[in-house]
């Protein structure tokens, strides 16, 4: 069952990344241009029996591979630490469509805590968006970790791009509990 989940998740994330990664450069791209970035995807299954400290029953498994894209994202291969105490899981949030484009994040959960979050997709359709995102994305990255340090179960709010992000964070939290 775990293997099937792994396979499904890694396949989904690959497909998602392949089909919906939006990237562009400020000088040449126009709104709606979509460039498919080269992907390298790894999925490492592990049956380690790490014990987790909080609610999650994840046990040292790697949930999904990560597409690492050349320019924008510093995607990382997922790691699974097997051992008596450590359990790491990398989960991709769902792709959320906004007026400006798609937003997707990925989080790494270790022992029930988010230790890292990476923005896999942000809208880069024009110069303005790029400036906005260049400012917003690092904040979002650190905030995801900060939010989890406060151990958030759900996220309430009503906005656009950040709603998309938060929903994606919510979605990533959701996914940590889907299996």
């Amino acid at each position, binding site marked *: 069952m775990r293997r099937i989940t792994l396979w499904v998740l890694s396949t989904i994330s690959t497909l998602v990344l392949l089909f919906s990664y939006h990237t562009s450069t400020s000088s040449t791209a126009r709104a709606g241009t979509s460039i498919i970035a080269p992907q390298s995807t790894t999925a490492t299954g592990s049956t380690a029996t790490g014990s987790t400290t909080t609610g999650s029953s994840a046990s040292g498994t790697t949930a999904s591979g990560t597409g690492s894209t050349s320019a924008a994202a510093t995607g990382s291969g997922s790691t699974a630490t097997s051992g008596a105490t450590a359990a790491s899981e990398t989960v991709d949030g769902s792709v959320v469509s906004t007026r400006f484009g798609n937003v997707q994040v990925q989080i790494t959960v270790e022992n029930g805590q988010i230790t890292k979050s990476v923005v896999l997709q942000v809208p880069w359709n024009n110069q303005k968006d790029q400036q906005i995102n260049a400012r917003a994305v690092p904040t979002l990255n650190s905030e995801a970790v900060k939010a989890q340090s406060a151990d*958030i179960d759900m996220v309430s709010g009503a*906005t656009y791009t950040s709603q998309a992000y938060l929903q994606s964070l919510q979605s990533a939290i959701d996914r940590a509990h889907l299996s």
Partner: protein
Amino acid sequence: MTTLEIPVRPHTTTGVTPTLGRKAFVEQVMGMPVSVHIRATEPTRVDIAAAAAAVFAHLRKVDEVLSTWRTDSHLLRLQHGTATTDELHPWLADVTLLCLEAEDRTDGLFSAWRARPAGRTVFDPTGLVKGWAVAAASAHLETVPEIAWSINAGGDIAVGTGRGMHDVAPVWRVGIEDPRVRGQIAEVVTLTRGGMATSGAAIRGAHVLDPRTGSAVDRPGSVTVVGPDLLWADVWATAAWVDPDAAQALMAARDPEHHLIRL
């Protein structure tokens, strides 16, 4: 950091808290992702999955009847005069009555009716339907033994328990997004039972109209209302977005168990 407890009855400390696992169910319904989270000692039980499916089915049905996007919804067929009242779901009547009550209770700060420039009056109960639908759908979870549940429908949240969990209801920590800083959590509210709705114009722009003037409410910030029931938390959040001071005074007088958080 705000901490609000909205227990239906006092929290007991004598109950032994069981170790709870957690399981999430997510579907795209009514144009938004809806997450159902369950805590239970054995969250993979089939009756839990069935109840979660029933929640989504309920919301899909609500969408069929009351969507303002689907031209085949009962609501739009009614508005466009392409359906006789016999064909329409009784929920339309329920929601219409609730909208009247909401307008009454909020002294018109909430209104589902508005005038179009052409002089036509439009009935748009969207501001009430989400809270109403989620609160009603959660009935499918309240009958499930020994679970605690939480539903997040596009940022509006309902929290509660099934049967036999009243003394050991776990706390859900809900972060409220900072309306001024994208992606930041500004407040954390802990809930064991109740509803919580946020209204604001932050990045999505002004989408709530002031029924008194007909113009859009456009200012920074957001308001969140926490109360025993998501339906009324949602209505009060909309009213408080239109006029926070007036809504707070009305809430204190008419629905004192609700709390307003301004950001």
